[in-house]
């Protein structure tokens, strides 16, 4: 067998079940690679070699007895270091949580455990998930495996890096204003920003409870669908999870048929100030969909700046609630960037926050009426320009920090305010061999449609199969 780590998640899970490869072999390979790449890309906060190997041996032993724990039996993964495991440290990327042990295990980790997955470690992230570049002055910056002089995107930096670098088959991330999609796009992997209320957030460090979503990063759409089929559904511990049936995502990805679906090309907002190289790749992707039989239509965008503003106010109110106590007691333990951003949140009064909560319902209604009457999904860029260098984004708290960060998240945040699902897919490379991503934005709870489209696209293109040089 060639390098087993180059299989997809779907292939790896099947290979373990068919006993073509053992969980111990896969897990050992993943740990070896994680350790080998760590000095170059700094993807991990902690590699849990002993625990992971013990888990892998247990998986193999089960399999030997004919017991298959679930669809992810024996497959090694790693997750952003903000998903709690009872009794273990979860740094959330911050000195403040450097020694803090979690009181409970995240609902999503419990689901992955039950499905048989093995966790080999905890991944780098932006401090408290508050930042889109993936930099972290406390843990050290994660590096882009396509070119380590460039940012990874964040905040789920380690998740994208470890999946892109063929270290693990899947990783969990969280997306409050692009934190799954941004690093997925910048590292060339597939990531799902799930519908708000689709996946439990119990036992996950919040950034903004009004906007936070949990979703998987994988190498392919089919892998992603398999992950979400395990993660999705109502959870008694998280009141925000809705009682909406979970469709068969794996079949949706398998059908990969977009004939009859209408894909909307946004006019307004998403096409403003977009770098020509990025615009070119997006146009090519739209053309590919047309070639696959989808109807491609132009759709005028409602006022997304107002939606973005709503998102800022919601985030600010939530952030004060989460961080107020630490800001009073341990402000000096934050990195400069995070501290600066949290200070900004103080400006939001309760009235502003309530206004934002009110506008939100109305904005969602208007958006759905204006957009989804004309198409089934939108196709839009993720970052309007090519992947910046680390040195391009000096955002360590200087006066321009807010403007730069705002520009990076501009095309992301509205989707979180609206609570819609969005699938990030690699759609080519800009000069310098840096990945470029796009997002397919669907109706609420229409992840299955997005998987169908994404799988069709990946059936017709090979961007997602390219392996970074690191």
């Amino acid at each position: 067998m060639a390098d087993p780590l180059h299989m997809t998640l779907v292939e790896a899970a099947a290979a373990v079940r068919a006993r073509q490869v053992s969980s111990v072999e896969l897990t050992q390979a993943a740990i070896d690679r994680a350790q080998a790449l760590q000095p170059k890309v700094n993807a991990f906060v902690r590699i849990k070699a002993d625990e992971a190997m013990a888990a892998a041996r247990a998986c193999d032993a089960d399999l030997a007895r004919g017991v298959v724990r679930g669809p992810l039996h024996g497959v090694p993964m790693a997750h952003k270091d903000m998903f709690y495991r009872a009794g273990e440290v979860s740094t959330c990327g911050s000195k403040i949580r450097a020694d803090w042990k979690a009181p409970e295990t995240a609902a999503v980790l419990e689901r992955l455990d039950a499905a048989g997955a093995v966790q080999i470690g905890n991944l780098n992230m932006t401090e408290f998930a508050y930042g889109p570049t993936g930099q972290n002055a406390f843990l050290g910056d994660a590096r882009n495996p396509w070119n380590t002089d460039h940012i990874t995107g964040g905040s789920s930096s380690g998740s994208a890096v470890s999946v892109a670098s063929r270290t693990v088959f899947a990783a969990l991330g969280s997306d409050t204003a692009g934190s799954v999609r941004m690093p997925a796009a910048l590292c060339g992997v597939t990531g799902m920003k799930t519908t708000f209320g689709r996946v439990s957030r119990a036992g996950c460090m919040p950034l903004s409870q009004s906007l936070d979503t949990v979703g998987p990063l994988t190498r392919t759409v089919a892998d992603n669908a398999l992950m979400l089929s395990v993660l999705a559904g109502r959870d008694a511990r998280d009141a925000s999870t809705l009682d909406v049936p979970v469709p068969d995502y794996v079949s949706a990805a398998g059908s990969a048929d977009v004939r009859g679906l209408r894909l909307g090309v946004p006019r307004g907002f998403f096409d403003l100030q977009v770098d020509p190289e990025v615009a070119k790749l997006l146009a090519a992707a739209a053309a590919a969909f047309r070639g696959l039989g989808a109807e491609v239509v132009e759709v005028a965008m409602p006022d997304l700046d107002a939606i973005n503003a709503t998102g800022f106010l919601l985030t600010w109110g939530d952030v004060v609630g989460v961080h107020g106590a630490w800001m009073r007691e341990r402000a000096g333990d934050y990195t400069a960037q995070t501290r600066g951003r949290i200070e900004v949140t103080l400006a939001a009064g309760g009235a502003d926050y309530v206004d934002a909560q009110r506008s939100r319902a109305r904005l969602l209604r208007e958006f759905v009426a204006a957009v989804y009457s004309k198409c089934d999904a939108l196709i839009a860029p993720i970052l309007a320009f090519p992947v910046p260098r680390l040195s391009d984004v000096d955002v360590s708290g200087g006066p321009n920090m807010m403007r730069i960060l705002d520009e990076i998240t501009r095309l992301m945040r509205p989707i979180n305010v609206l609570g819609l699902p969005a699938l990030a897919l690699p759609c080519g490379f800009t000069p310098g061999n840096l990945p470029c991503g796009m997002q397919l934005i669907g109706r609420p709870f229409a992840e299955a449609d997005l998987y169908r489209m994404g799988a069709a696209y990946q059936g017709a293109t090979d961007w997602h199969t390219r392996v970074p040089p690191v």
Partner: protein
Amino acid sequence: MRADWEVVIGLETHAQLATKSKIFSGSSTRFGALPNVQASAIDLALPGVLPVLNAGAVECAIKFGLAVGAKVAERSIFARKNYFYPDLPKGYQISQYEIPVVQGGSVTIHVDGVDKTVQLTRAHLEEDAGKSLHEDYHGMSGIDLNRAGTPLLEIVTEPDMRSSAEAVAYAKALHSLVVWLGICDGNMQEGSFRCDANVSVRPKGRKEFGTRCEIKNLNSFRFLEQAIEHEITRQIDLIEDGGRVVQETRLYDPDRNETRSMRSKEDAMDYRYFPDPDLLPLEITADAVARVRAGMPELPQAMRARFEAQYGLPAYDAATLTASRGLAGYFEAAVAAFGGDAKLVSNWVMGDLLGRLHEADLGADAAPVTPAMLGGLLKRIADGTISGKIAKEVFATLWVEGGSADTVIEAKGLRQISDSGAIEKIVDEVLAANPKSVEEFRAGKDKAFNALVGQAMKASRGKANPTQVNEILKRKLAG
């Protein structure tokens, strides 16, 4: 109070709900545990550990809403009240703000024989804060978060009360109602029921309200009354001296009987409310309300009316007996055990029973003389075995020693003497021994007759049937 001033009072009462677990977590609400052993990650609001609302607390709120004739909101919203205080380390309290679960309603009070209705603005669910212990810990305060997250129902009135007496009457009526409903244990020493009073004064006849002050955390009816009285005097003095009342929160100091300013105005303004992002709107369906309604106890007002109609009791008796569910239940059980005149039961319950319960600081449920025992005793009065007076002696013995009326009567030989031969003998002896009284009676002094009856009863050690004593004495004196 000075005659040219009118007082305006509104109360905000925090009733701790009698649930087993906290409002948003599975921590115990038991009182008196070691510090911080009942504070879970949710009560401490560790980020990422999410609150989930307790169905028991919601049921309590619905019960209260139904009992006061309020609207139980189909949808209500949980909000964060952001403020900073050491016993609230997370920096916000989860409460309800714009849309509370109970809206409107009223409570009827009786003051100086007059019924008055106090309108409620609202009642909302919220969590309690922790407790600061101000003993000296190297100049610091100790924080116990066991109470953090304990469910409270905050019940807010309109500014409808016009005297401290009305405020106390309202607080007492509310207290008995929440205890009656079983939604609050009513223990004021432990802080299960505490009031904040909003007090203002205005010259009589003026329409606009004066500036009000809020006096916090009054945990006894006496403090409530004293604090309001003091605050009224303070405000009137202030205005009459040319000063102005400043809107503020004040604290009552029972040791010095005064109120003093508690938080600066700026801080009071700094509450920020917004809907809690961790909690979705609370939806209460008509079905849920109907289910609670079906399980509701009969309410005091209805029970009062029924006692008057069903048992033929005077209004005063009906009101007294329905002061608590325990007492009312006691009364009805005793009536059933007795099977005779309910008014006799009422007299005994309001008299001997209540007196001894007060003395022993017990609830009717804990009375050593059970309804069955009292019923057995009253039967013996009704059938003439003992007199009412002897019955009091039997009751006293039952209270201390237990047993039944019959065994006590037998053991102590208290059976009434109804044998007319025996009574005649006693009467003859009494007449012989009291010639002066006999003379006075014959001279027209009716009082002398009573003295002779008393002597006869005394001679029988209270056991002679008083009716028979009367008859025989009359006959002999006439003869």
